[in-house]
């Protein structure tokens, strides 16, 4: 009797204690689960359902929205661009990260370098977008990238040209259909010509330009001068070289006879040129059209053709440090002995890299690649910010298209939901891979 009462009396509190423990556990998880249920689980179900209805949400259309994705040209562009992103960006990032991770181990300032390259991970896509809008500015006087491109271009090709220069009316030069200028009257050896041009703004005059001068020509040569027939401040006489008037250096000049070029020259700092050793006869002195060609203006980075590669470039700037640090961590866990042994056996650095480092790193490289695929798939802000308004439709990807279709004027929430679901389906495999690996490494 006594034993019975004690056992019954003990079971009550134990069950009560158990119920109490459960209540505590539920109190611990409930806030998180409520939020997840209301704002994540319910929306997924809603989106899946909504994707089977039309734009207004009133008529059931079955798979029509999913079929529409592959018919609508804008969505097709988005799918194509997303494919480019997903293939190109992770590949380049993994490769670049690998190369930098291997190289940075060989220098003493590795830490500083890693910090510098990792820093953009802290920066918002918006700030990065503004940074690269500045860098990709098309005017080479403002965009640093085009300034560099034009600089390199002009090293290899003579950049000295006068796009705005033209002769005065009736001062002895005639324009040819190809844009070149030739002397109206024939020129014979032993004579000198003065070719006055106008229309070169003072700030575009080359710094080396000197006051123009003309000299007498010997019997078998034609001499001449190309100059700016304009006196700053006024007072100059048209067709005459006045004291303050300067030569136009670097101008190409040709002597033409019977339609063929027989001699070429380039004007000196004072604008003078000379064709020596000319046979008797009559010539035309010609200023070829190349002198007046507009200067090279660089690349249209944010034009329709290059906008996607340009934005991928900005993305590389942000994520390369991530790939490098992750691969570097894998690299530091490689067996040093294997690498050293190979080096002692006379293997070159390239052989060590190709035959030992890369195969041993393969698992880490896969992780980096897959992680990047997930993140690339969701890229939105960068495209939204960098692509200028009119080019946005050339740069669009699934994430931006989903936004445009649902909220940005399209207002087709059926198609928008279908795009969201497609995005979800595409991310799932990469995600499963990552979560599995995470769990393995945790256990």
């Amino acid at each position: 009797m006594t034993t019975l009462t004690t056992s019954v009396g003990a079971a009550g509190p134990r069950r009560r204690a158990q119920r109490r423990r459960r209540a505590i556990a539920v109190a611990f998880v409930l806030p998180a689960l409520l939020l997840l249920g209301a704002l994540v689980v319910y929306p997924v179900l809603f989106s899946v359902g909504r994707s089977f209805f039309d734009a207004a949400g009133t008529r059931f259309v079955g798979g029509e929205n999913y079929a529409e994705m592959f018919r609508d040209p804008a969505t097709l562009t988005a799918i194509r661009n997303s494919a480019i992103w997903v293939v190109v960006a992770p590949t380049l990032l993994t490769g670049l990260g690998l190369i930098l991770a291997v190289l940075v181990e060989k220098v003493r300032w590795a830490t500083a370098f890693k910090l510098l390259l990792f820093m953009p991970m802290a920066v918002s896509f918006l700030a990065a977008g503004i940074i690269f809008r500045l860098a990709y500015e098309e005017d080479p006087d403002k965009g640093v990238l085009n300034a560099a491109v034009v600089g390199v271009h002009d090293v290899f090709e003579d950049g000295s040209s006068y796009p705005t220069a033209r002769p005065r009316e009736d001062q002895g030069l005639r324009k040819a259909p190809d844009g070149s200028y030739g002397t109206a009257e024939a020129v014979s050896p032993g004579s000198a010509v003065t070719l006055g041009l106008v229309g070169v703004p003072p700030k575009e005059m080359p710094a080396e330009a000197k006051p123009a001068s003309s000299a007498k020509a010997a019997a078998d040569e034609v001499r001449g001068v190309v100059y700016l027939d304009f006196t700053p401040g006024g007072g100059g006489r048209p067709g005459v070289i006045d004291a303050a008037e300067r030569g136009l250096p670097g101008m190409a000049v040709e002597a033409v006879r019977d339609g063929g070029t027989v001699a070429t020259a380039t004007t000196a700092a004072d604008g003078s040129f000379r064709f020596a050793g000319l046979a008797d006869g009559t010539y035309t002195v010609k200023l070829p059209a190349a002198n007046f060609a507009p200067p090279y203006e660089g690349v249209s980075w944010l034009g329709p053709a290059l906008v996607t590669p340009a934005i991928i470039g900005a993305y590389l700037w942000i994520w390369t440090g991530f790939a490098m640090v992750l691969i570097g961590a894998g690299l530091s866990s490689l067996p040093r002995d294997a690498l050293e042994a190979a080096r002692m056996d006379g293997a070159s650095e390239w052989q060590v890299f190709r035959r030992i480092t890369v195969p041993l790193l393969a698992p880490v490289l896969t992780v980096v690649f897959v992680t990047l695929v997930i993140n690339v798939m969701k890229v939105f802000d960068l495209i939204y910010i960098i692509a200028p308004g009119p080019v946005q439709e050339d740069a669009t990807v699934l994430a931006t298209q989903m936004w445009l279709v649902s909220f940005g004027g399209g207002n087709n929430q059926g198609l928008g939901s279908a795009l969201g679901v497609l995005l979800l389906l595409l991310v799932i495999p990469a995600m499963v891979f990552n979560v599995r690996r995470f769990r393995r490494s945790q256990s």
Partner: protein
Amino acid sequence: MSATVTAPPPSQPSAPPPPARPVPTRPRGGRLRRWLGNGLVQAFLAVVGLVWITPVAGLLLSSLRSANDNAASGWWTALTGPGQLSLDNYTALLGNAGITRAFWNTVLISVPTTVLVVVLAALAGYAFAWLEFPGRDWIFLAVVALLVVPVQVGLLPVAKLFGQLGLFGTIPGVVLFHVAYGLPFAVFLLRNYFADIPREMLEAARMDGGGEWRIFTRLVLPVGRPAIASLAIFQFLWVWNDMLVALLFADSSSQPLTVELQSQVRQFGSNIDVLAPGAFLSLIVPVVVFFAFQRHFVQGVMAGSVK
């Protein structure tokens, strides 16, 4: 994620380059080639570093030049003509009511979000790791599965829901959305970290008669500090830098800096004197956090990249 969680923090100097050991078996040409090769490596990395720093330098210098200077020439002319530089744009920015309000909105969104995510995830993570309740493991698996959901899928339905609740266009709405989408990863990370606490430690604490709440605050939270710090930094950064969520859920009085600046990108070119300092203001906070907490920062970003 062992490879990443054990990543050596960049603050610690990595292994010094192998000293020039005498290698008698190697021909002398080899050492010369090695030396030359190292020079090439240094030069290459220096160029890469320069390429990386140039865009930020461009932003900084542009932000210090007047609108007229920016319209007339490139920022690099300031390198030879430092007279162009002044803090006028920043003074103007601080006097710009829209920008300062947006800055405070950013703080009011990201700080509460971070605190809420950490608190809710720590509570749930502890329960999933150490407390008994029916269906525990299945529910945890479901939470992990939610990691896949991109925020894009939630935008439309939650917008409708918030519209009905009167949360649309408010800071609490933005915060709640961020918290919900930050939770799966946060719970996942903390549960896994808490699960590694030795069982004996917890049992000893229970023997001493500590309630679950006491154990949670006195034992689990202190032990979990490294993971919590990484999570907090990652979450803060994620929300501070977000544009997409706020673009939809915030109205003009609750919008953060990213959205405020985004609305001005349309006139890009004519307003660099506002955009450049604004972007710099938006990036300086995360960069300071980055340099102050390098170790937790790198680990947080690495762990968070599974998202």
